[in-house]
């Protein structure tokens, strides 16, 4: 006889320990595909490790990779807290990136003090718009936001291709579908010389701190969590549920839009259709690993970025497909799901004991 019984409250050790164990387990499980690919296991792990921690440059590359993941992770974490399933961060990222390219490539030739905040503002607004639409369809028509946000990702990427072949196309780009470069004064400054880390990382960390504060300490955060835990109860308690959903939709979309802004106006300097290798979807994994806590998102994003950068370097050295990184990330999500279960419930085998309680 197997029964499943809820544990009382979760201890802090469980909450923090579990994602770490899940992450490590996912890395260990990567040994299976590595073996199948015929790569030497220990050498591969060593290569992965040195690909992230081997040099100052490698480490800075990891931080560069973590930057968009912090944004998209926060976007997913905030929305999921309200049980608003925003799976559209990928599209919202591109909306933000298009706004950045539209504003920053020469329409306004003003000083950086004005241009950079304008780019950020429009990027946020574009991303927010991208999530307000499905949130409105949900509130107004009951259209499931999971499906609408997923489908919008495809629509937005097709729209992006149109923009890159038309209005946003670089006339000097030799026919490549890419935007003109962002004006120099519109680029976010670099954090360190000769490294690619840029102020997008600082903005991401500030956003995480702000989101953590808002979620845990503010009335807004309280309402948001109430809506997420029990929408009907929240409605009965007089919380304006629809308005809460719309504000979190706007914030979530804006954060995803910022990911696009920071990639275009912080890292690349121009917009292409392959700007994001799925940062929006990976953000969901980041948020889940973080237990939907904004502070945790930062740590989870650093871990996932390490997996990607480390696996990239390992794949090049060992000739293993770089899809290994995606596989590890997906496995980490499965592990953390299972782990989350074990932290909330215990599986009891054998004859159930009376008493207790």
């Amino acid at each position: 006889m197997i029964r499943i019984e809820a544990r009382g409250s979760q201890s802090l050790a469980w909450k923090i320990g579990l994602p770490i164990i899940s992450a490590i387990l996912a890395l260990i499980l990567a040994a299976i595909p590595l073996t199948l690919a015929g790569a030497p296991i220990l050498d591969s792990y060593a290569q992965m490790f040195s690909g992230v921690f081997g040099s100052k440059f490698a480490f800075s590359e990891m931080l560069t990779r973590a930057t968009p993941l912090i944004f998209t992770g926060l976007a997913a974490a905030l929305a999921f807290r309200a049980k608003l399933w925003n799976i559209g961060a990928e599209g919202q990222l591109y909306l933000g990136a298009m706004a950045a390219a539209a504003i920053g490539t020469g329409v306004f030739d003003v000083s950086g003090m004005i241009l950079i905040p304008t780019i950020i503002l429009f990027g946020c607004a574009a991303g927010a718009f991208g999530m307000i639409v499905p949130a409105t369809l949900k509130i107004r028509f009951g259209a499931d936001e999971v499906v609408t946000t997923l489908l919008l990702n495809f629509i937005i990427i097709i729209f992006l291709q149109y923009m890159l072949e038309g209005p946003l196309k670089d006339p000097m780009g030799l026919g490549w579908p890419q935007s003109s470069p962002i004006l120099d004064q519109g680029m976010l400054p670099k954090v360190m010389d000769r490294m690619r880390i840029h102020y997008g990382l600082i903005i991401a960390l500030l956003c995480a701190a702000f989101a953590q504060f808002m979620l845990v300490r503010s009335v807004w955060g309280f309402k948001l969590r109430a809506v997420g835990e029990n929408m009907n109860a929240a409605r009965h308690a007089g919380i304006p549920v629809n308005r809460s959903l719309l504000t979190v939709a706007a914030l979530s979309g804006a954060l995803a839009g910022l990911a696009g802004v920071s990639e275009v106006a912080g890292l690349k300097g121009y917009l292409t259709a392959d700007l994001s290798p799925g940062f929006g979807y990976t953000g969901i994994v980041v948020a889940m690993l973080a237990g939907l806590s904004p502070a945790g998102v930062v740590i989870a994003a650093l871990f996932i970025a390490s997996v990607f950068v480390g696996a990239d370097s390992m794949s090049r050295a060992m000739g293993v497909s770089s899809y290994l990184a995606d596989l590890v990330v997906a496995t980490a999500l499965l592990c953390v799901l299972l782990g989350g279960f074990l932290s909330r419930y215990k599986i009891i085998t054998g004859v159930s004991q009376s008493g207790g309680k």
Partner: protein
Amino acid sequence: MFDILQILLSESFWSASLRIATPLIFGVLGALLCEKSGVLNLGIEGIFVAGAMVGWMAVWLGAGLWGGVLAAALAGALFGLLHGILTVPLGLSQHVSGLAITLFASSLSYFSYRTALPTVSSPPRISPFQPLDIPILSDLPFIGPVLFQQTALTFLALFCVFLVWYVLNKTALGVAIKAVGDNPNSVDAQGLSVYGLRIGAVMAGSALMALGGAFLTMSAFDAFFFGMVNGRGWICIALVIFASWRPGKALLGAILFGAFDALQVRLQTEVGAFVPSQVFLAAPYILSIFALVIAARRAEYPRALLTPWFKGQR
């Protein structure tokens, strides 16, 4: 001006519509079966990829076309089993588990493909299913060319529509599956296994989804490409709501969708000079959202959809 009427009356148009609809028919049926039992399966997109890869790979390794179909279905059922275990006895979030399955199944498929074929520049081809040519029937006016330019997999899809309808509406098993998606306590009270029924339905549904993927590599095309599923799975999730969880309406929805897609390809050649091609590319996704918005208000979701059930807890 345009010869829309002429397009709509042509055999090749309806033949193309049915061909485009085939993977969607499999996918919508699969999603329908899962959801009828109370489990949303967002693993569909990844299971499509896995079905496409495994079916193709099996044939490429020499399993024969039907061996490939079987291998794809088995792969789908295995991912369904994983999703079933995570969401049914363990009661984890169906949204997150489904997305995890999609990420896992697609990255595993891509990784396996790359590992098996590290160096190829152009994807190796297999000889896919050929159109069935049945004497006499193929010579029927209109119906002949529309139906009999299809491959065996399209007929399998049409048969599955009947099969799923029959099982759900005419058998005790179907009554139990629908009951477990509406009111699991009643099923438990009758001494049937809620877990068994739900996991079984998710596995069968996932196998159907994988066949939708297999159609892409074994009938529509003859090779496996990265990103070839391209949101078809998500479209199925929208279509199943549009079809109000009825197999017949699912068939209708998939064919309408296929017809629209076939129409836009033909319109593109007519008005391509004035309208950017992206408008046509985006049309299927926009149409899906419209279908969802129209259907959502009156949708009667299975009552226990998304709700985990634990023995002994009411």
